[in-house]
């Protein structure tokens, strides 16, 4: 991409994404407002979160129009974090059970 011309996209696109982010935020707020509980709550929260994150990264940060080498250099390394989350979830569960056994 020519650095002088840069990323040129119509303003109407940004306004549409802005509107979508507003709608998605309102919907995730309503999940709490209407006291959804259990699996439905977690699913909705995660879906709205990922949709919002995807719109921001793809359109506002222009990653959708960058070359694939840059896109993968940015998006692949954070996948390591899933390993960390998995390990710490197992560790946290273990700590919880140990505490139940010895401190309750």
């Amino acid at each position, binding site marked *: *991409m020519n*650095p*002088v*011309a*840069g*990323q*040129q*996209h119509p*303003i109407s696109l*940004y*306004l549409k*994404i*802005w509107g979508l*982010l*507003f709608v998605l*935020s309102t919907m*995730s*707020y309503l*999940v*709490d*407002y209407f006291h959804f509980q259990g699996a439905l709550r*977690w699913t909705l*929260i*995660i879906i*709205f*979160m990922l949709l*919002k*994150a995807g719109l*921001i*990264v793809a*359109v*506002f*940060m*222009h990653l959708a129009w*960058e*070359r694939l*080498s*840059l896109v993968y*250099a*940015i998006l692949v*390394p*954070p996948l390591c*974090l899933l390993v*960390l*989350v998995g390990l*710490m*979830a197992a*560790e*946290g*569960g273990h*700590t*919880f059970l140990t*505490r*139940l056994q010895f*401190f*309750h």
Partner: protein
Amino acid sequence: MNDTATIAATPLSPTLAASGWRGLIADWSSDRQAFHVSWGKAMMWIFLLSDTFVFSCFLTGYMTVRVSTTVPWPNPSEVFALHVGGADIPLLLIAIMTFVLITSSGTMAMAVNFAYRRDRVNAATLMLVTATLGEIFVGMQAFEWSKLILEEGVRPWSNPMGAAQFGSAFFMITGFHGLHVSAGVVFLFVVAFKLIRGDYDKAGNYQIVEIAGLYWHFVDLVWVFIFALFYLW
């Protein structure tokens, strides 16, 4: 031009031609470029990638203490409720903060657009609007912190509502995010000032606005995750 042609023809020449520090740089760069964007944009992306790991470690730490505690976690929906017109509205302030930050992302995206059209005045104005919205966000966060510390008695080591880890996780995560917003406001003011002064006209390169925008959108992006995982969970 001739140098590049020679290097391309004989792959060993850069190592032979330079030694010491110059040789080290030549060996590592080898006159190759992986990312076809300006160095400023590439470095901002790499910085944001490292910042992703910082925030993810905080959020993972929060997850770990939350699943491992045997004491009930305070209900964020009630803790962050605002008393308006005789009723408690859950998470009202947080919802307003979310909308303010999303709006600032929208104005920032438009500022980038105007900058590339060489419309300095509109670009700088929209950046100032973005920075002001960022300040409003930090102001509301300061209000939220004071309410929690002074009225509800939340401390990093204890709180009256439940699990003690709530305070440390909350202050650490939102505090670090608030610092990012504050730094972004300063960054935006500096770039907007230089834009108005005409510093970027000589080279005709306005990419710094897009780079500042990348940082700002990232701050908004982190808030999306904090909102979902800390406030709504």
